[in-house]
């Protein structure tokens, strides 16, 4: 397995977690989600559409989020995503793991 792929996977995992977090508050459509992620990271993260949409498909297939057709503020048909019960559980798990991972890495970086 190439290092590049591992890196991609790591990033992918992070994005999934962030999407779940963003959707936890309210169901959103793709565009809204992109805006929200940007806003949450205080414009640090620029989410690529080529990552966002595949991630949505993946999360939906895992059963963590659920997409439904609804009507947007502009009275236009839009696909809204919401977090499912298993998705919430998954988010908690990922948060814990992330905390463990980041604290471990931080500790390792601090150690000489």
């Amino acid at each position, binding site marked *: 397995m190439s290092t590049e792929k591992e890196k991609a996977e790591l990033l992918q995992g992070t994005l999934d977690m962030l999407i779940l977090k963003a959707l936890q508050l309210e169901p959103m459509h793709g565009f809204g989600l992109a805006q929200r992620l940007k806003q949450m990271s205080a414009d640090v993260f620029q989410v690529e559409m080529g990552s966002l*949409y595949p991630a949505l498909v993946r999360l939906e*297939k895992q059963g963590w989020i659920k997409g439904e057709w609804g009507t947007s503020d502009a009275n236009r048909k839009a696909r809204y995503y919401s977090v499912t019960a298993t998705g919430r559980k998954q988010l908690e798990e990922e948060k814990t793991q992330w905390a463990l991972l980041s604290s471990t890495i931080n500790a390792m970086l601090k150690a000489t």
Partner: protein
Amino acid sequence: MSWLRKLRALIHRDRIDAEMRDEMRHHLEAQTQRNVQAGMPPAEAAYAAQRQFGNVASVQEQAREVRRWVWLEHWARDFRFSGRALRRSAGFSLAVITTLALCIGANTTIISVLYGLILKPMPFRDSSQLVQVFNSLPKSNRPRERVSIPQYLDYKANADLFAGFALWTVWSFNIDEENDPERGVGARVSADYFDLLGVQPLLGRFYTMEECVPGKDAVLVLTETFWERKFNADPTVIGRVVRLSGQQFTIIGVAPRSLEAFNSDTSLLKPLEWPPAQAAPQARWRPNFTLYARIKPGVAHSAAQAQLMTLEQRAREAAPPATRQVLDQGAFQTVLNQVRAEQTRAVRTSLLLLQGGALFVLLLGCVNVANLMLARANARKTELAVRQALGAGQGALARQMLVEGLLLATAGAALGLGLAWGSLRVINTYTAAIVREVAPITIDGTVLGVTLLTAVLVALLIALLPALTTWRTNLLFALQGGGRSASAAGRARAAGGLLVVAQVALALVLLIGAGLLMRSFSRVLKVDPGFDVSRVVQARTVFGYPGMTQENIKSTYDLIIARMKEIPGVEKIGRTGGFPLSPTMSLTAIPLRGSIPGQPDTQATAAGLTVSPGFFEAMGIPLLEGRDFTEADTTAMPRRAYIVDENFARKYFPGRSAIGEAFGFGPPELPPEQWPRIVGVVASSKLFGLEDNTNTPVGFVAMGPTAGFSMVVRTSRPAREIIPLMRAKLRSVDPAAPLYHEGALQDELDYMLSNRRGVMWLLGAFAGIALLLSAVGLYGMLAYDVMQRTREIGIRSAIGATRGQVVRLILRQGMTKTAAGLGLGVIGALFLSRYLETLLFEVRATDPLTFAGVAGGLSLVALLACWLPARRAAKVDPMVALRAE
């Protein structure tokens, strides 16, 4: 992850793609709107949105990839992994695949035969409405009598629940008299036969009812097979004139092959004609024809039958008192049987039995495979636990098991189909002898579907069982090495043990079935035929031409016999009008003079055979009392002498001599004082085949010179030497006369047993497979168990258990299960063997000797299967065993 969702994604790919395009378009619109709100001009806003989003198609493709890739990847990975896993344990895989191939092969073969012979509809529209009509006299032991012309005419005119009736009778003729005379078999059939079946001529035309009258009936319809064989499928054959038995016939048509499904030994058809006398009312009780009928669609068979019974009731009123008495004594009724059921009557029971046997083998095989998989799953417990700990879901592991099962089942099914294909080629060489109406049996689409379905079910079964037992495995326990050091988990062991018990029981049932059949067969072979089988050759001939005078017939007949006697090695020669041996000799009602003691309600019946003086001597049938026929008996008109066999004499004249008693064959025509008298009693012999144990009384009538007869030649020379000489002698008298139905009586007797022999061998083979499978199952379970308990056995040895004690420990474990299986098997066999009863011969379905012998034999095999692992257990070195962990 969900299967349904994946399936949906696969099916609705187009819709999902469209939805995704929609979704992204919305994204672009929203972005554009945001840009406009931020103050951009609309055109520029849309362009900026595009730029911010990136390549729409590429994003779509990336998203799509996620969906597809995962789906494919999971399966590809499962299959790759399973393939690797199975290759790693080649012995295991081979055992499973071989077991499955044997089971699936056996089942596919028998299902194919069953389907080809019985279940497959005949190639005619609504063939379930096609029936054969019988006059049945069940109380006189004559349940399947034929039908007469007056009955046919009556039904045709008055039975409106039927779409049609057709009369049919065998018609034999000599053909190719100029070159190599041969006896052909065709049929005389009424013209409505073609409408009844709904067939169209392949060539030319069929005949009409107007041609079914004497004088207009010299027309022929060939069957396709005969047309190809004799005329090389020549299309100009229509209108050609051919000579059959010295008579001219014009070929008017060729019938399609589907017609042969009705009666395959028919080579050609001619109109069935009858002289007025045969249609006269009194001829109603002289049934001589086969009657086929088609019941109208939607009419129940019982209703149709009731209608014919009503017509018969009306006819009965007009019958002479003597006839009425015969009908009443036999409890006359009309019976309708489906044509296909009628054709396959002889093999139906055997085939259903064999199918039962094959299913047992399949069950046994599944049990064995499940046991193997269980043992394997147990051995892999640690591996599975590790994978589970690393994050593989229960579902993923189950899927893995399923894929393994599927791979094994597919390989087994493929091999099994090959096996079935081979077996069918062998079986096809025999089916023609049993049911001629059926084309070669093939594995057809339906059967193939059944096989594949079976394979999938088997895969599910063998995958689910181990998956279920490992479902709630204690992870920690397994990881800590529990799976290795202690004995296998209790539940898995109990399941394995139960499977072994079931196996032994199933195998015992099959073995007992096969054992009973084998004992029957050996009993049949031990039957004394009552005549000299080894030294008698039979051959039949028909000579002459229409209108040949009785004097000419007599001189030709005498000449033929005289010439035959010239052949060196011919010691005696007897003749009979019928066949010396025949499995189906029809019974005739015989009015006996005086009352029948002790049987007031039963009509006396007997089989009749015309025989020449010297017939008994040639056959080697001893004369017990009185005398043989003389030449004078053969010419006396009316006949004055009968000879009967011992069965006849015992049944109808018990406790006294039959000599001098009188009876008449068939409905009485002569006044009783002129009835012929019995002049001799011969020993009973197996003229209906060795299997016949009905003790049917036989009456013999003196046979005079006739144009068609069978010769029985007593000779010390083998049949293959004598027959060409007989043919040459026959040609020297009449070059146009064929010699047919020729061969040694021994061969004929053997041929008559072919059905019994076939069933016995097949069921025997199934039982053999079952025995092997159960022995392997028992061995496998114990061997695995010993391996698992190496440490326990080591401890036992270390604290002082002797080798004998260890061996006894393992043996006891195996033999307890065997004993339980034997017990269950005996109960099962006691219950099931009754279905064998019709195939048994002088052996009871609960024959204690067979039961005991088979159980003993199975125990010995089981003991061997247990002893091998027990010996290995005894060899366990305590130090090595304890240190191994």
